[in-house]
């Protein structure tokens, strides 16, 4: 618990730095007034809006205002939506999280059996294929895979819906697309962990008890090798959300990624700020969770 609090406190300066990065980026983006008002708006209107937005103040004053607003959860109004940015971002979050979880799920069910098989049958043909597939899974650009999956499963086989969010069927292809990269990484991780663990003495102990090989591997070895995997999975949040941006575009998934891309294209900086901040917060929380979970799952580490 103490540790948890300590980590929580550590996150505070990090959030400040993030707010600074986000603010600086937007500050450098230039005058938003031109985008917020119609082209032929009179000069006085522009000036009035600039003052209303504190744009004439020096950098540090503007930053302090920004932080002040941020603490109240305000990132300013999105000019494309005409609403406060944060609720818009939060509205999209569930879709992205749903996709991310589905991807992790896919990654898990692919990587655990493959990783184990690969490790127990080291250097067999199967291992070579799995290891090769894992490298390939990482080497393939995400969107390419996504479009290929649509063509195969939706257009030619007619088996799954092409795009959108709705039933569990809608989730399958995007989840596979997003999950493949992680699956590849975790397969490699489980394989190397298992290789290590299978040489541990306690595995020999388990065998010396007369346990079936299946139990030796899936109970004694797997549980040990999963501890770092759980951590790595939580640490994947960052790259998962990154990948989601692309996957969402391919599959028209109404999540944070699409919102963000649009906001960048229309320079809707309130949305950009809010989404970057929300994502960063999410990542920090997941990392924290990973850390706590690691300590919780591994009895060797004392929770202090």
């Amino acid at each position, binding site marked *: 618990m103490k540790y948890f609090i300590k980590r929580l406190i550590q996150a505070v300066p990090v959030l400040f730095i993030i707010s600074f990065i986000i603010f600086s980026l937007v500050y450098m983006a230039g005058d938003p007034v031109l985008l917020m008002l119609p082209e032929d708006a009179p000069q006085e209107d522009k000036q009035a809006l600039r003052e209303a937005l504190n744009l004439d103040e020096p950098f540090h004053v503007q930053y302090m205002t920004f932080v002040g607003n941020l603490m109240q959860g305000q990132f300013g109004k999105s000019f494309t939506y005409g609403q406060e940015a944060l609720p818009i971002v939060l509205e999209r979050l569930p879709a992205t999280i749903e996709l991310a979880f589905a991807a992790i799920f896919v990654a898990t069910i692919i990587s655990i059996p493959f990783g184990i098989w690969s490790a127990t049958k080291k250097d067999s043909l199967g291992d070579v294929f799995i290891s090769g597939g894992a490298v390939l899974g990482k080497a393939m650009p995400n969107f390419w895979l996504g479009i290929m999956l649509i063509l195969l499963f939706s257009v030619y086989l007619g088996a799954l819906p092409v795009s959108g969010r709705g039933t569990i069927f809608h989730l399958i292809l995007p989840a596979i697309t997003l999950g493949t990269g992680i699956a590849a990484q975790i397969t490699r991780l489980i394989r190397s962990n298992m290789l290590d663990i299978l040489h541990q003495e306690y595995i*020999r*102990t388990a065998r010396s008890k*007369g346990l079936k*090989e299946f139990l030796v591997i899936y109970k004694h070895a797997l*549980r040990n090798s999963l501890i770092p995997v759980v951590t790595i999975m939580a640490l994947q949040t960052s790259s998962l959300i990154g990948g989601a941006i692309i996957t969402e575009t391919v599959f028209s998934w109404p999540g944070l990624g699409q919102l963000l891309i649009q906001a960048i294209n229309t320079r809707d900086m309130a949305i950009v700020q809010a989404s970057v901040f929300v994502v960063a917060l999410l990542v920090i929380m997941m990392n924290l969770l990973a850390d706590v979970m690691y300590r919780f799952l591994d*009895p060797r580490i004392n929770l202090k």
Partner: protein
Amino acid sequence: MNAVDPLLQIEDLKTYFYSGDKVIPSVDGVSFHINKGEIVALVGESGCGKSVTSLSILGLIDSPGKIEGGRILYHDLDLTRLSQKEKLQIRGKEISIIFQEPLAALNPVFTVGYQIQENIMVHERISKKKAKAKAIDLLIKVGIPHPEKVYQNYPHSLSGGMRQRVMIAMALSGNPKLIIADEPTTALDVTIQAQILQLLKEITEQQRTSILFITHDLGVVAEIADRVIVMYAGQVVEQADVYSLFDNPKHPYTKALFNSSPKMDQIDEELTAIEGAVPSPFEKPMGCKFHTRCPYVMGKCKSISPDLEENNGHLVRCWLSTENAKSEVT
């Protein structure tokens, strides 16, 4: 052989390891037996093949190793020819093993209680509750205070001695006829060591369990063993009952072991005092394997390997003692 009631009989066991196109004969024609209720010590330096011998008994040799020849007779059963399923019924039930480093040998993510209970449940149709009760009984038996509490603990939170007691409880849980104790006291400090040895002794006396006690510590051997087998470079070089060996070590290697062995009350150390090093597993010398380090080396030793010869129940693999025996006869 003067086997009264052999529980386990190893005949010409050959366990080889493979590395690339090289063959490493870790165990190269080892034969010995263990009687019921007997404590046999297997002595030798690191890498002499003691552990491989013990793992061969349980069929726990992993690739790239393989039992290439010989028989391991348990009662009438040749353990080298068992199916996987039959092997599982032997392990933990008929023969169990205690490893040297309990912290490494216990799975860190399961409670110790569970790990004992698991061994019980593999071999007995028994409810979980009963298995737990039995596990706690075993913990009491091996002298663990607060067994209920310890049952819930993870290995890392126990002391070294306690962990080894847990290992012993685990080994006992299947009521085995033979316990292989692979340097069970090496990692422990001297007082705990004595306690553990005492415990093992008591167990054999109570249950008539045999123990194959693997160690490099002659002090421990004197304490516990009925009979001693000395191994060097994959071969048995000397075998005798504990008194005859300690009174009259015949093989130069055994003699060297005695010379380098620390006295009983000294802190245990690796045996490094023998001149030279164990020969590389790839390039075992011709002739007697010990001739590179032997102070009594003769010309013959370098080319022809001596056989294990018996003399009054005392077996030795050395040209010197063969010569001596001959001269005694003539």
